């Protein structure tokens, strides 16, 4: 029998995993299964299914859409593979396997809580950033139902905030850079009937940072809910919030892990089941391997953040400068300085956003777009619309930890010709 692990040492995820790697995986039956049970078809890729001649380009892909999703951080991948074998048991059980899973979960929570500046018992794990926003805002609003139901929020919040606020929303406009109008925010939050105020740490589409500390001061007794999904792992998250939401896949962790941090003294009335599992801190059977991988990714990412941030900031400055200089009739949007390090958004007049994304993809560049033609609703990004900036021909570039300067320079070199070609097709 192995020695029981010592209880949750805050930052010892790697160490605590080490002793449990020896589990002999009982997978032999699956591996010898008949061909009908083969899982290889699950791994069919876009390039295999495509008839176009892009095969040679696949090896030269330049991925500039890190704000949508990043490849898993190597530290997270390694942790996930170990944790799948060691953290599968039910953490509420009293047997060795259960206690192992519980220890790993405690370690993950300790690391994640420390990274966002709360105690472990103030951190709820959810299944996504969207779920954290929805559950968190709803729980704070419910706890303050005697005060009112209004959710004050900026016009450029994530759609999950907009949907949760619903009818009882007081939306506050933003300036041309995408920054909330602080005077209007202050006015709105001080009206009667406000349950909670929501303001993102920085905008996920244009990178502009929001005045979180000033908003917190303005909010007074009204709890401030900060969606920090775009910032955590990339940028410093300002203080002053009562509740914070974040999402692991935004910092190189796995999909399916959201954080909901609720500072002591903030009342919540949870709608989720407060069952025996960690007093409701992670309702339902927790995904221990994913939580650990999320923690490993964040720990590794924070260690790199300063260096990566400097690099990304300089490269985004370069893209901003070159796009504005080399392409006529382009609107580069968002704050040039007070922004996230890794995101840049611009819109090209007379250009179809879908055509530009597709043309860039064919040249090997992956970017996203807030143009209406690239969305399922055929409506332009509510962020760009609220800022009053051009919504068509829109491209968001976001850099990841693997992005190289060479890739950034190639993007700047290729883009003007593509824009020119698409404009020529419509006689512009």
């Amino acid at each position, binding site marked *: 029998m192995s020695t029981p692990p010592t209880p949750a040492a805050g930052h010892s995820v790697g160490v605590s995993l080490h002793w449990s790697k020896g589990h002999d995986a009982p997978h032999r039956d699956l591996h010898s299964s008949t061909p009908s049970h083969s899982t290889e078809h699950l791994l069919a890729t876009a390039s295999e299914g495509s008839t176009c001649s892009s095969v040679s380009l696949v090896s030269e892909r330049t991925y500039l859409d890190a704000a949508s999703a990043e490849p898993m951080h190597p530290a997270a991948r390694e942790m996930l593979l170990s944790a799948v074998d060691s953290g599968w048991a039910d953490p509420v059980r009293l047997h060795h396997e259960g206690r192992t899973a519980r220890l790993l979960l405690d370690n993950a929570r300790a690391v994640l809580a420390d990274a966002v500046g709360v105690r472990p018992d103030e951190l709820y794990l959810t299944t996504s950033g969207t779920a954290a926003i929805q559950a968190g805002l709803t729980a704070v609003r419910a706890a303050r139902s005697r005060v009112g139901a209004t959710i004050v929020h900026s016009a450029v919040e994530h759609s999950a905030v907009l949907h949760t606020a619903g009818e009882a929303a007081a939306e506050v406009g933003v300036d041309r850079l995408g920054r909330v109008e602080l005077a209007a925010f202050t006015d709105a939050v001080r009206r009667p009937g406000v349950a909670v105020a929501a303001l993102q740490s920085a905008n996920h589409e244009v990178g502009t940072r929001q005045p979180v500390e000033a908003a917190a001061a303005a909010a007074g007794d009204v709890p401030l809910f900060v969606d920090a999904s775009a910032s955590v792992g990339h940028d410093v998250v300002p203080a002053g919030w009562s509740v914070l939401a974040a999402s692991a896949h935004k910092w190189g962790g796995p999909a399916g892990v959201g954080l909901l941090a609720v500072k002591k003294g903030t009342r919540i009335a949870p709608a989720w089941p407060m069952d025996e599992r960690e007093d409701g801190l992670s309702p339902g059977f927790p995904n221990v391997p994913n939580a650990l991988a999320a923690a490993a990714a964040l720990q590794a990412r924070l260690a790199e953040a300063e260096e990566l941030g400097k690099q990304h900031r300089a490269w985004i400055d370069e893209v901003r400068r070159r796009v504005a200089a080399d392409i006529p009739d382009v*609107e580069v949007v968002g704050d040039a300085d007070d922004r996230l390090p890794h995101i840049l958004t611009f819109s090209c*007049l007379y250009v179809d956003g879908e055509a530009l994304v597709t043309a860039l993809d064919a040249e090997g560049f992956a970017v996203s777009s807030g143009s209406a033609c690239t969305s399922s609703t055929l409506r332009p990004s509510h962020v760009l619309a609220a800022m009053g900036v051009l919504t068509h021909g829109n491209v968001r570039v976001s850099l990841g930890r693997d992005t190289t300067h060479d890739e950034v320079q190639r993007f700047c070199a290729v883009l003007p010709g593509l824009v020119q070609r698409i404009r020529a097709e*419509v006689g*512009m």
Partner: protein
Amino acid sequence: MNIDLDCRGLICPLPVIKLAKTLPTVAVGDTVTVLADDPAAATDIPAWCRMRSQELVSAGENQYVVRRVS
């Protein structure tokens, strides 16, 4: 003088492209009234006027009046 430009049923950037091609055909001081029901036009026509330094006289329900100033 005013020219009507019916862009109903067209999606962006087409209404803006049509506006950009039509405005130079009117005299400086004259207007083009764009009829456009694409939701993106509500943002993009005012943005075009700002970027191209033309005057947005009014923006109403699916109707935008633009004056050529240069």
